[in-house]
């Protein structure tokens, strides 16, 4: 699978203290435009560098609603991840995503920071995501074997991760009776931790 194109957008362009839904809705329009400028499998990296405060309301309008759109498939296979200098900056974003039953990968710290899952993701899904992120890519069978679970159960987990745009899928054998897929991490082989 060819490398996906990544574009980084600094959220501080909207201000250092991001608080209201009105401001969040305005920012969402810019973020969606940046997302649509990407190729169908591109990734928007939303950097929270230089941000002082990110409220739940702004985060929900600007980021939560985009995650909702992404999971509905309206923007193809495009993905969104967040890079935050600190964990406390994304606390309310995580709560809002959980309210929407969505999840998002966030790198906390600098370029060598830790990947975390913001929002709501059940422990089995986190385990599967961690494994895939460590491997970079895998088939359902490979993941199921390692996790020690039935392939069908693993398939359901990975489908959910794909729908949340936390991993990407690639058709690898369309001639087989059932189309075969390979699943790819979207965050460069780092471990994702719940949280």
């Amino acid at each position, binding site marked *: 699978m060819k490398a996906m194109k990544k574009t980084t957008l600094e959220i501080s362009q909207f201000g250092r*203290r991001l608080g*209201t*839904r*009105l401001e969040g809705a305005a920012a969402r329009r810019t973020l969606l435009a940046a997302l649509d400028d990407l190729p169908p499998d591109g990734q928007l990296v939303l950097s929270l560098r230089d941000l002082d405060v990110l409220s739940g*309301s702004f985060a929900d309008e600007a980021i939560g609603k985009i995650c*909702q759109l992404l999971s509905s498939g309206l923007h193809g296979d495009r993905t969104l991840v967040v890079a935050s200098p600190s964990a*406390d900056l994304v606390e*309310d974003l995580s709560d*809002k995503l959980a309210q929407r039953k969505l999840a998002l990968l966030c790198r906390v710290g600098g370029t060598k920071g830790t990947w975390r899952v913001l929002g709501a993701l059940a422990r089995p899904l986190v385990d599967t995501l961690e494994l895939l992120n460590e491997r970079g890519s895998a088939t359902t069978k490979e993941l199921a074997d390692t996790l020690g679970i039935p392939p069908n159960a693993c398939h359901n987990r990975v489908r959910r991760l794909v729908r949340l745009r936390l991993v990407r899928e690639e058709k690898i054998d369309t001639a087989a009776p059932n189309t075969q897929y390979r699943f790819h991490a979207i965050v460069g082989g780092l471990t994702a931790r719940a949280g």
Partner: protein
Amino acid sequence: MRLTSETIEDVLDLVLVEAECSLDLRDVGSIDVYALLLLDLVVRHARESGAPLRVTWPESPSVRRWMTAMHFFVDVKTGLASRPAERNAAQGTRVESGGAANASERAAGSFALGASTLAPIVSIDREDDVSRLVGSFDDRLSDRYPMDESPRRRFLRILLELFQNIPQHANATGDVLDPHGIAAMHDDGHSVVLAIADKGIGLARSLRLCLGLRSGSSEQACLAQAGLEQSRLEQACLSDADALRAVVFDGRSRFRDPGRGHELERIFRLVRSWEGTVVVRSGSALLYQSEAGGDVVDVAPFPGVQIALSIPRAVFGIGEAAFGKGGVEPRGDPGFNEGNEENDA
């Protein structure tokens, strides 16, 4: 006599239940910031209802100075006819140029401002002004104290959510002439106290809007909506006390969007985790929650939502090791009115 979140209810009982048209506050020796905002709204509400109150203001110079420093007299004397924009303009020039304050009040205000007033009363009318207002509160707090970053950021998120609730919810029906959203912040020597108040539609009416019911909902009205899902029906029938519990404890909102709601619930949990005190009043219900416990109790019906958050100074690292480390000495005076009495001498 102290006017606090508890004793201000006596004032509301007098005015709203016993229909008293005069208030004698001469002996008031201290007022907390929540009581100050409620007093502001009660005086304004009475005037707008065509039965203006005759108020004898506190005689204590320190209390009057503090009220002046909090821009109380400027705000409360702003006329019925004035529009929110005019009020903001008056407040933007602060008490010094406020037409309602006399020279001695202005001088007193300047004197008392440095003692314990963290942010005097500001109007919250427009959502696009919220970030600026929160910024001004942040500046005042940060200028006064060296603060720990993480709690400061959390506190700013509280301000952002509570401030924008007023333009978003206080007049959601569009039939409130002036919900008069106001906020102020004070340091009482132990805690940073934030008060936010309006006399808009309140929590119960706001929740009823999820059904498009624009006026007081009766049981019959609820039954007429029999085709609606049960939880929505229940929401339409909520009393003030039930609505308050639904919003603060269950995170309910009038919006169907799953991303909406839960703000007051999150704020309540956060402030309680800091061992702070939360007061939420709406309509005829009052929630008072502190270390000693809490409950929702019946109070005199009054429009809108009034909130007070009292957060221990230690949460922000205020007054702990900062002075010894060469930081700024905290200047909040213990028990502000008593502290100001010392200034009288």
